[in-house]
């Protein structure tokens, strides 16, 4: 019988243990692939994003068109690849905006307590009560040619409410801990306490929530584009391609299916990554296992 391996605790510099987790490997690999595909789109396909191939309308998947072609005779694979740039880019930037805002508002409310807390949280309650999809549809209906950067901002500005409540709750709990009192007893100021003693301890919450926001943004963007109010043609996004495929879904299932699969695949990987990040970055689960 072989001896059990010696447990060597990495002692001084604990490295995140993602190597050990299969979920981590799978999620990261999947996302790397998705991002690479997006970046390498011009290399991977010889067609243009909106290039129309006359006489090639609605061809089923084949060797020349792996994902088939759409109603205008555009290569669906090409559009999915280019669309991923828009979908992922929107999701990333909107998530950055939403995470920053949600964390800031949550930390401000949770750390201040009292009236500031009550005021901010009632504001968030109100914002949460607004039906987000309808709000966005309304906005986009008023301003149909919304430039992409404004669209990102709007997506981000409407995605931070739940995170701010999570962060606020976490911060409320953290500020009562002894080490925060100890930090005050050592002469730390408010900013120092927030940035060194409170937020680093709330990072797990943010890191688990951020991928969820990103996933949500991808789905929401797809939904809006699918409804025809998001990303405008000829620009491709996963949602807008699916929208193109919707009308012909009975005869040409491939136009809607592949962008749909891309969404499902990416969002699943992102959500898995959220869990992995939480496990990996919680220092209480570092060595000494």
């Amino acid at each position, binding site marked *: 019988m072989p001896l059990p391996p010696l447990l060597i*605790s990495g*002692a*001084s*510099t*604990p490295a995140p243990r993602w190597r050990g987790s299969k979920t981590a490997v799978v999620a990261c690999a999947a996302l790397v692939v998705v991002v690479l595909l997006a970046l390498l789109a011009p290399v991977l396909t010889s067609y243009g994003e909106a290039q129309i191939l006359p006489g090639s309308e609605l061809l089923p998947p084949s060797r020349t068109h792996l994902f088939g072609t759409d109603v205008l005779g555009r290569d669906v694979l090409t559009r999915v690849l280019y669309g991923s740039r828009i979908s992922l880019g929107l999701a990333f930037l909107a998530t950055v905006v939403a995470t920053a805002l949600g964390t800031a508002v949550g930390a401000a409310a949770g750390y201040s*307590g*009292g009236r500031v807390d009550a005021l901010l949280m009632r504001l968030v309650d109100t914002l949460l009560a607004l039906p987000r999809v309808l709000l966005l549809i309304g906005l986009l209906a008023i301003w149909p040619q919304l430039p992409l950067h404004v669209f990102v901002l709007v997506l981000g500005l409407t995605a931070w409410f739940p995170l701010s409540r999570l962060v606020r709750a976490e911060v409320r709990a953290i500020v009562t*801990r*002894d*080490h925060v*009192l*100890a*930090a*005050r*007893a*050592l*002469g*730390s*100021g408010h900013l*120092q306490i927030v940035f*060194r*003693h409170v937020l*680093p*301890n709330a*990072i797990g919450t943010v890191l688990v929530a951020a991928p969820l926001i990103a996933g949500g943004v991808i789905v929401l963007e797809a939904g809006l584009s699918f409804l025809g109010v998001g990303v405008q043609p000829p620009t491709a996004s996963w949602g807008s391609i699916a929208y193109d495929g919707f009308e012909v879904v009975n005869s040409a299932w491939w136009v809607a299916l592949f962008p749909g699969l891309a969404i499902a695949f990416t969002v699943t990987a992102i959500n898995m990554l959220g869990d992995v990040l939480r496990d990996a970055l919680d*220092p*209480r689960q*570092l*060595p*000494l296992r």
Partner: protein
Amino acid sequence: MTPPPKGADAPGAEAPLLSVTDLRTYFHTNNGVARAVDGVSFTVAQGETVGLVGESGCGKSVTALSLMRLIQSPGRIEPGSSVRFEGTELLTLSEADMRRVRGNRMAMVFQEPMSALNPVFTVGDQIAEVARIHSRASRRDAWRQAVAMLELTGMPAPEQRAHEYPHQLSGGMRQRVLIAMALMMNPALIVADEPTTALDVTIQAQILELLADLQRRTGTSILMITHDLGVIAETARRVIVMYAGEVVEQSAVGPLFATPHHPYTEGLLAAMPRMGRRRDRLRVIPGTVPPPTDWPTGCRFRARCQYSWDRCANEHPPLYDLGDGRRSRCHLAVEPGRRAHPHEPLAAQAVPAR
């Protein structure tokens, strides 16, 4: 030859380092005003160790936090209270000035060494942070000081331990880290709030010895807050006994243990196991500390006292001065004859034992 500058208006070597006068810290809650600390006065001299004892809920920790002005809403230090430290009135300092006192001139050691450390930074980082707050030390210098401080606290392999996270250290080591943090700026006063309560008995002794040793080397004063008279006997020169938000007895350690004046102190001593004294069972003080929203009128210890008589119900006892630095908040000081007639305390009569 001019003497080194002292605190702004320190009248001389005799002025105590810390003098607390009529400290009242009230919590204004929905259930009424909790008078957690209710008119406490005491002093701590340069280089002295003063013990502050009492059971849970008597106001020890609130007193400690009040000294550091760390009381949070709904708690409030009431106007009229005074905390003079190194010649400065702390209660009227601006928050920014107060921050320069905390961790620098007056530092605190907490009870729970695990939860008092930030779990996401290495301990060396956290000790170094103190220097970064209070001096313009560079990152490297602060780190070097932190390691030196850890070594001073007797931490084995300090250089290596400094790179570890709190959860990787044992309770005793964590307490050494907290002590290193408290001592980093060489403070004039260390407020140690139950520093050994969460530790094993063997580690307790080591930590107390360490504190005493560091005190000898640095000349710092220590306010040792504990419910454990054993800790007091080992470390302090003078004791302040608190009960129900008030000081009930003050004395040098020896005389207090030999002849306690206040019945509460007497009860605490009787409840303490001692070597070389045969007794089948430790005595307990019947009842508990009354809620601070509702201190009894008259003597606050009356219901639990075996000597109480009608005067105790009607007249709140002052802190009688008994000479030799001894004080007791008990009418026995003026009617010592009553000590001859102990009876069942009210609390014991109200709640039948077992």
